[in-house]
């Protein structure tokens, strides 16, 4: 049994190395290559890494919390606002193309399809920025500071 396992493993390793697809972990996962890049850049690499790490795990909680704050208390800071996520992560529509939540290329959809999650945010919320100007008109970089909430005072509606 054990030798069978070993032989299968070594065969697979051989196959992978032949195909140049070594599974040593340095390659990004498949989803990384598919997912659309955000249009804006963070000030520093650390901010970007912190943002990714936090949002990959916690985006649903962050969005839910911010949703209630905005709806019931009128707090309209850009941090964790769905509108701002969309502004940065879904490129503004061009003349030829508008990426909506019905496209597999849509930032949110890429992952949700990959992990078989069905969300209903976009039954009501706009899944892409309003105007082509939106993305370019925003002041890059956002300068999002993961540590403090008051780092971004930019006003959003």
């Amino acid at each position, binding site marked *: 049994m054990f030798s069978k396992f070993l032989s299968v493993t070594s065969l697979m390793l051989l196959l992978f190395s032949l195909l140049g697809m070594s599974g040593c972990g340095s390659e990004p996962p498949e989803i990384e290559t598919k997912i659309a890049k955000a249009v804006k850049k963070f000030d520093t690499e650390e901010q970007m890494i912190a943002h990714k790490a936090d949002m990959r795990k916690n985006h649903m909680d962050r969005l839910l919390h911010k949703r209630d704050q905005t709806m019931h208390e009128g707090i309209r*800071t850009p941090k964790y606002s769905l509108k701002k996520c969309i502004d940065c992560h879904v490129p503004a529509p061009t003349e030829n193309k508008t990426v909506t939540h019905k496209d597999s290329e849509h930032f949110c959809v890429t992952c949700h399809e990959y992990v078989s999650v069905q969300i209903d945010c976009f039954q009501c919320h706009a899944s892409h920025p309003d105007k082509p100007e939106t993305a370019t008109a925003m002041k890059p970089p956002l300068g999002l500071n993961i540590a403090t*909430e008051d780092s971004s005072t930019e006003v959003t509606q």
Partner: protein
Amino acid sequence: MSDQINAYRRKFMAGLAGVAAIATIAPSIVLREVKAKAADEASTDSVRWGLLIDTNKLTESAIDAGIEACKKRGWGDEKLSNDAQDSHWIRKVKVTDKTTRKETILPIMCQHCETAPCVDVCPTGASFKRPDGVVLVDKHICIGCRYCMMACPYKARSFVHETIENQRPDTPRGKGTVESCDLCIGKIDVGEEPACVKVSGGAIIFGDLKDPESNISKSLKEFGGTQIRADLGLNTGVRYQGI
């Protein structure tokens, strides 16, 4: 019922008192007609937003322009709904005085009642009044039962009957939920005037009913203002002159 809700709200708001206290001493708050709160400040009951509509000054074309401006926010182009099902955030109502035969056209939107019947009847808490008096529907928790539509004496609420596409970023709306005039909440939170006020040619004043120095309070003090169906005692945030 309403006492219970108020008690709940007070408890809820008490948790935010710290935030509000910081905000009141913030130097960025200056006295002007539309006081924008800081973006990170929670809405408080130190203001009460309202509208004052001068029906003698407001022309029918200005009402139409107001409805168009309101629709531009992202509603009103439903394809499958019939006339009875279509959303109406503002309705045009023509009234004739039997004695004088004077005809008046009124724009009727949500009156942002202080003791709002729609809030009282909502079984989920989706229909709620913000501390600054704006009555809204939290569509995340609205179950579409339409109790609020039946309770509203002003026919201000609409139910979305069909799948909506291409919503505007600032106006999320979708099938199976109820909606009404939100006093352009995203605009007033950042210190802008509501869309219908901008195109009214000065016939609609937006402002803080609690501030005696605001234009709306001054005009109310000088000329008065009528509540539609004042007999219901709802203390509406929308007042009319000339009726």
